[in-house]
């Protein structure tokens, strides 16, 4: 009986998890970010993002799991350009997840906001609900001009038309790291073993990724930075990405 009550309590608990197994988190230091977009191409290469073509771009149908948003401040001559990389925030209270009628997106034990492409039926509700607009829809089945398809990453599936997709924090790399950890008889992945493609490429090291459950992880230390904030925090989506503001001098 007590286990029943315990279980019921668990099922009634908001968010369900007591604690994430890993809490994958990213920090993005805007003071380092130069807007060079190396991360965008890295992501495109790693995650088989399609080459959509000029026509689709003109129609605003591009797919970029990570993009750089640009904001101007002031007017000439005191004009400033601010870059902010925008990718799936892997919100713990994600508005998109509840929207899906078929559980194609849900929150897993690693604190990741998942998207199971093969389950998606394409209602696109998640994209509407997402305040960060980081969910991208496959309006068409995209193809690669032969032989460009040879560079497709076999660890990531190629999505067909009618499917929503988004940043996965490079789940395939997390998977490989966990696999290696198991091979070494370690239960846990070490800090720095998982590096998503964008973080890996970032030439200014503005992006840091890791398990924020581990207080020793670099990302946990970065999160303590007083410059840290979360985008659109007032929406209470509790994102997993912490931005560090640009310093004014």
């Amino acid at each position, binding site marked *: 009986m007590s286990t029943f009550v315990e279980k019921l309590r668990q099922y009634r608990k908001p968010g369900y998890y007591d604690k994430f197994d890993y809490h994958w988190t990213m920090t993005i230091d805007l003071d380092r970010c130069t807007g060079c*977009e190396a991360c965008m191409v890295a992501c495109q290469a790693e995650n088989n993002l399609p080459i959509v073509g000029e026509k689709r771009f003109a129609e605003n149908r591009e797919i970029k799991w990570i993009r750089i948003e640009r904001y101007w401040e002031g007017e*000439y001559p005191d004009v400033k350009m601010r870059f902010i990389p925008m990718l799936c925030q892997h919100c713990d209270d994600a508005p998109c997840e509840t929207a899906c009628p078929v559980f194609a997106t849900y929150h897993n034990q690693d604190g990741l906001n998942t998207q199971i492409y093969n389950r998606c039926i394409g209602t696109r509700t998640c994209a509407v609900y997402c305040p960060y607009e980081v969910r991208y829809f496959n309006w068409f089945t995209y193809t690669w001009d032969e032989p460009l398809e040879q560079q497709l990453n076999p660890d990531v599936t190629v999505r067909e038309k009618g499917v929503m997709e988004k940043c996965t924090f490079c789940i395939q790399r997390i998977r490989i790291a966990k696999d290696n950890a198991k091979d070494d008889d370690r239960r846990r992945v070490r800090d720095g073993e998982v590096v998503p493609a964008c973080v890996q490429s970032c030439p200014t*090291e503005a992006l840091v990724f890791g398990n924020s459950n581990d207080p020793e992880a670099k990302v946990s230390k970065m999160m303590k930075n007083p410059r840290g904030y979360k985008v*659109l925090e007032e929406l209470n989506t509790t994102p997993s990405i912490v931005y560090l503001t640009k310093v004014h001098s």
Partner: protein
Amino acid sequence: MSKISRRDLLQYIGAGGIGVVGGVLYGESVQQNVELLIPQVVPPEDYSPGVATWYNTVCNQCPAGCGISVRIREGKAKKIEGNPVHPVSQGRTCARGQAGLNALYNPDRIRTPLQNVGQRGSGNFEEISWDEALTTVGSRIGRLKIDNEASRVRLLCGRVRGHLDELFLQFMNLLGSDHYQQYDFTYPSALMAANKMSFGTDVLPYYDIRNAVFLLSFGADYLGTWISPVHHSLAYGHLRQGREGRRGKTIQIEPRMSLSGAAADEWIAARPGTEGLLALGIAHALVSEGHYHGSDRDEWSKALQAYSPSLVSAETEVSEDKILRLAREFGTSTASLAIAGGATAAGTNAVASIVAVNALNYLAGNLSQPGGIIFNPDPAFSATAGSRQAGFQGMLDLIGAMKAGDVDVLLVHDTNPVFALPDNVGFRQAMQNVPLIIALSSFRDETTEMADLILPTSTYLESWGDDVPDPGVGFPVASISQPVVATLYDTLPVGDIVLSLARQIGGELPIHMRWGTMEEFIKERWREEYDQRGSEGEEQEFEAFWQAALEAGVWGQPGAVAGDQPVPLSSSMIASIADPVSRFAGDESDYPFVLHPYLTATFFDGRGANLPWLQEMPDPMTSVVYGSWVELNPVTADELGIREGDVLDVESPAGSVRVPALIFPAIRPGVVAIPVGQGHAAYGRYARDRGVNPIHIVATLIDDQSGDLAWAATRVKLKLTGERLQIIKTDGVTRTLGRQILGPENDHA
């Protein structure tokens, strides 16, 4: 249900039969396609299916020479990342480096040797065999050699470093032609010349942005395109947030905000062409305000007398206060660094401007200091590649020779002068006078299209080679480039082609160039280097070294020598100070705007335009994809009644291009900017017939001292054509509208 008639029974059986057949057909239709399981005939040694392996090699997407690691699965390249042990890239890559895969797997690669069968430049090519191609070339060159006319053979290539350069040189020498030239639009000729004047060194110094505290950049887009962007970005990250409690500051001086301008704390749009003057103004203030304490203070103040901040302020339209403030900060910061590049190094005053900037560095006392300019030791090998840079003057000479009929055979490799030279120098027309043009190329760019014979080269990911990054990183480094995948098509690495040609030509060439392949050649050279450096030279040991070097992709002596180069005397520096104000082609009244062409972080000088990932990468500053645009200040646009998307005729004294307008808040009024990179007439499906090439309308003014093309010294006028064109960009509204996006302090509407 008493009796069923025979007729009924047949009907039931029929229905059942149809059902069964239908069921079987249904089963057949939902059956998965037959997938085959193809085993290897003989498995390679280190082959593991489903497991990735990494091979280190060198990136060739720009001349920075970053080390890269390529992820290989089942023999196919999947991902390019930085080589973590390589001192230039330190595990990082830029967008262009990543897009190298697009070059390897580009659908528009040349797959077999081709022979032109139509009119030259018409693009009618026919496939031929390697034998045929090499025989044709070999016999032609061989005949010239026998006739002692080998000097009528010319070799023009892009920026080639490492032992490939030596191979080319040897080939041409043995042939008896001293016409081996390199042409690279982005080669910093002015910087080299200025440094030679200021510091007396032929080797580019290492700019230690990483440890700088105050970085003053005169037009150098060090984060996007200048010299070694990935390395500078790493340094920039450290400058900003790498040191506890000490955030470096950067100032960018340029008429149109570049990526580095956006990153800077302050962006100053001085009058175009006066950046060098501004540097002198700052130098004047440095000395006169007493921030310089050297023994030669008086000499400096004398030399800088004419550049008082008030005078400079009037000329540059930068306020005197600002000049004084910059001087103070520059003079008092613990580690100040001034660099120059971009448009500053592309006026008629380029060398003078850079000399002025060098003077700033000298006055701040940062030469051979951490966070300043560190003089590189001699590179590991092949230090002379830069000296073969033709420069603009060299290209004019080549054109002259071609026009005069002095060139019989022109070998072109990895350079695209038809695209990267102004239209009115007539490179393309001059090519018509050359009887035989041979392109050693992977892609059919504009220059390759003009060839009679195309010998397809393998890409850098399929070839052997080595490289010495230029500039170095303060200590001698060499990287090995190795093929990471098997050659995709019937192509050969360029070194192998040269060796084959040598064999084909015969004579003493094959005797001296006895290596079968580039790999053999490189390995032998490395062995020689290894032996020279006083190692035991045992076979076994070199093999181990070679394997280790291959695995690491790089070999060097970290921290061996840094800054032990002599600091040049100030007298030579003082003597080289000249009035650095650029002239402009075109009269201000006829051509009211200064044209500011700029290299883009996406296409560099246009060589990236055939890579779909780069075409689809929004321009970092404007978010535009697929196409060109001309940037205008909002106020200017307002005055002229120009809206975004209005197609303008941008007319210079040298020509005109038709391009849509883009309103850009961070450009000086009176300046219009057009990105370089698009506007290809050939170069594959992704690049072809897209946008315009501003280099084509650049007037052929040259820098007074280096003779290089002053590509930022052209004036233009704008004409509304009445047409409109949608500029494809990913941005919506580029103001935060007071929303909490950029962080608590940064959000003001």
